């Protein structure tokens, strides 16, 4: 019979405390998508290479496919849905929209979270530094140029 071990975790996701019983092997990205229905963050390479599953844990960006959900017990997790509602990503989203810095949109939530971390950490980043910071986020549709243009636009906007 089924003898799976389960753990109970409590995580503050997008400002709301949630408690779930889960298998310890469950990845954070599957916890968010399957257990909580937060499907904005995506699964693509499953090896930590592409950045499509990027979410924020205690304020730092993390790969959702390389983090176990149990590791976030007692912590705070933010996803693109929550950061859209709070307005934190609004400037980036507007710049991405105006510059068409996305096509299929599958990489976009991870791209936005990474870009937002860049804006916080390196507000003076040059174009080459933007390229370097985004080097772990794969976009297969655009030529990256629109993405870099959009981020540069936000960086150069006063009070970004």
């Amino acid at each position: 019979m089924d003898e799976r071990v389960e753990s109970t975790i409590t995580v503050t996701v997008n400002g709301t405390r949630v408690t779930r019983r889960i298998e310890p092997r469950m990845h954070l990205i599957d916890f968010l998508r399957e257990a909580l229905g937060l499907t904005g963050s995506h699964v693509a390479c499953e090896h930590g290479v592409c950045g499509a599953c990027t979410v924020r844990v205690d304020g730092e960006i993390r790969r959702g496919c390389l983090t176990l959900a149990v590791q976030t017990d007692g912590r705070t997790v933010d996803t693109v849905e929550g950061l859209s509602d709070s307005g934190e990503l609004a400037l980036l989203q507007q710049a991405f929209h105006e510059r068409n810095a996305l096509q299929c949109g599958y990489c976009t939530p991870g791209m936005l979270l990474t870009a937002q971390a860049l804006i916080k950490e390196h507000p003076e980043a040059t174009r080459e530094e933007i390229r370097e910071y985004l080097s772990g986020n794969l976009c297969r549709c655009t030529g990256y140029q629109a993405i870099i243009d959009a981020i540069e636009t936000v960086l150069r906007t006063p009070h970004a």
Partner: protein
Amino acid sequence: MNERIEPARLAPQASEVEAPPKPKTTETDEAARPARTPVGYVGQSVPRANARRLLQGRGAYTDDLKFPRLAQVVFFRSPHAHARIRKLDLSQAARQPGVIAAFDGRAIAEYCTPWVGVLGHLKGIKSPPQHAVAIERACWQGEAVAAIVAETRAQAEDALGHVVAEWEELPVVTDMEDALANRVVIHPELGDNICFARRFETEGFEAAMKTADVVVEETYGFGRHTGVTLEGRAILADYNAAEHSLTVYHATQAPHMMQDIFSRHLNIPEANVRVICKDVGGSFGIKVHVYPDEMATAAISVMLRRPVKFIADRLESFLTDIHAREHKATVRLACMNDGRIVGFDLDDLTAIGPYSVYPRTSGIEGNQVVNLIGGPYAHKAYRAKMNVVFTNKNVTCQYRAVGHPIAVALTEGIVDLAARKLGMDPAAFRRKNLIADDAYPYSFPSGLKFEKLSHQQCLDKLLALMDYEGLRAEQAALRKKGIHRGIGLAAMIEVTNPSPAFYGVGGARISAQDGATVRLEPTGMVTCLVSVTEQGQGTEGVFAQVCADAVGVTIDKVRVITGDTGVTPYGGGTWASRGAGIGGEAVLQAGKALRANILDLAAAVLKVDRATLEVRGNAVLERASGAEKLPLSEVGRIGYFRPDTLPMTFQAELTVTRHYTPREYGFTFTNGIQASYVEVDTDTGFVRLLRHWCVEDCGTVINPLLVDEQIRGGIVQGIGAAMLEECLYSAEGQLLNGSLADYLVPMTGDTPDIEIAHVSTPTRQSELGAKGVGEAGTAGAPGAVMNAINDALAPFDARLSVQPFTPERILKALGKI
């Protein structure tokens, strides 16, 4: 170092897109032709509305969908490239926690008939019947041989470890030339390993070639690579036993084609099958084919009478998404001492795996190579020999730019070699040979017909854009300092807007026409339903632009719906750079028809001559004064709620449908030219791509913002092919790089800024004048990068001709390892 990064280049202004040249026609023709779309949204960089939900993570990709009683299917796949299944015991797997069912190929075959991937117009093409799940034998590593269905994916994957299989390994054919030699025949019933062969020769070919002063020859290799859509293949099939109906949520480019295929192979009436494409996470041709595991998923939904989902993980994507481009080709170019090209001679060999893919076949890529060699040039002699062979690797089929990257690299590589042999500048050599801009309509030696291209204009524009002379001077100066930079050019032609000549004539039930339904809503909003699908390229956005202009409304009033066989007109979907050109024309004609019907209603209400009215800015206006007479909300209110106030003989028709098929030419060719500027480190073999330029002629540019970044994305995929991407197999047919950590694709650091410019020669086959553009970047980039690397290495007398151009290959060419 004088490498300069351009400041961020924002959306090009409309003025940067050249005005369409006035077509040369008689006055009568001109009068008979309606004016091109009025000044409005077409041609403007309008952000697309559907990006908003994707930017908030609120799209709905197939894996985001949840249904009551949804089951998950995973596949037990062959670990061998070629093996007979001696024993397959699923009983232990079926007893694992959460498992609902386990099926072998025979069980699935009772519900899903096999298929054969051949087409009537590819003379002699052959392939054996293929089942959704292999029955007696697996022919490539990764072929599905059993399906496990469970309540969760984790449970299903756990159960895979309990499948007991015994295999008898069979001889494996992985090398193309081995396959051609037929020492081991993969499908003995077919007689040999040749899936398809084509021979072509222009009259008097040998005699013409003998007149040439110079003949150059080179052999080129192309790595097998794949599309790597960020969203893996995805399908959710939901069978309703009471209705004997099947609803399939599918990450596909061609929902109507799939409706037909599910209907015929699962024996469900076509009208009972509905295919819905929600958001699709990239396609690039990967998601336009019939995949055995997807057919099995649909069959299992019927068998279990419940919704079933299959999502390919990344390893499955590498093992089973179609691969492409494994070619080895020798090409000869004959020319005169003054540089004039006499002819081309091609010998191409390509391997496609053990089956020709259904329903488009795996013969098309090689066929395209034969069609397109020498494409931009004005030679008359051409001979081609091409063989397509079976091997025990994953199947190959049509991936973005199908055949073009091969044909362009072969043509442009040998053109550069000829120029070098003659001591001519590569740009001057091209200028001498590119088909003249006033030579159209033009019949090409391989039989293709070109309506109107602009090679010479594009070359001029490119050379100015990149400051060709300045770069040559810089290159020469840096060479003296031991810095090795190279400039590579690649001219190209591209198949877009295909007519039924592509697939329909061969018996494939693949539509070359598309349709649009445009409906005025009671509030004055406009709903536009189109049979072309959206995979992120911005199809819905450009349809909204065309629709808004055609009806006479502001774009915020337009809602576009695509990707649902239950609601849109019938059509082909998205492939072969056809969406904007074909779907866009259908939208334009439907929008104009709705505008005419709106005017009819307004004329009846206002009791004036219809000719005195026009629709603009969401209202019916008096044409002469521009005065608003009737807002569209009023037209809708009267048309839907108070038709009793209209004349007895008048019936309002505020929903119209129009279709469009290009038929005058087999394909609406586009043209363009790319340039690459690279620096090669001759100690490490690493290449830095410094700049890249593309001048493209896609006719009417509907949205420069979307077009330019789509070209850039295509170029980056071409750069991937040239520099990084290859599906590596061992001699035993084992895939060696099945993850994104091992199979490299271009990331931000691998790509340069890319400058795009346009020449615009609208096609006269349609009123919109749009040609396709989605594949141009991918078509030209590998050839341009190859020529740039070889230009950089010219002082060393080293040449690269096998893609991808890895540091190892470069150091070998330099004789350093």
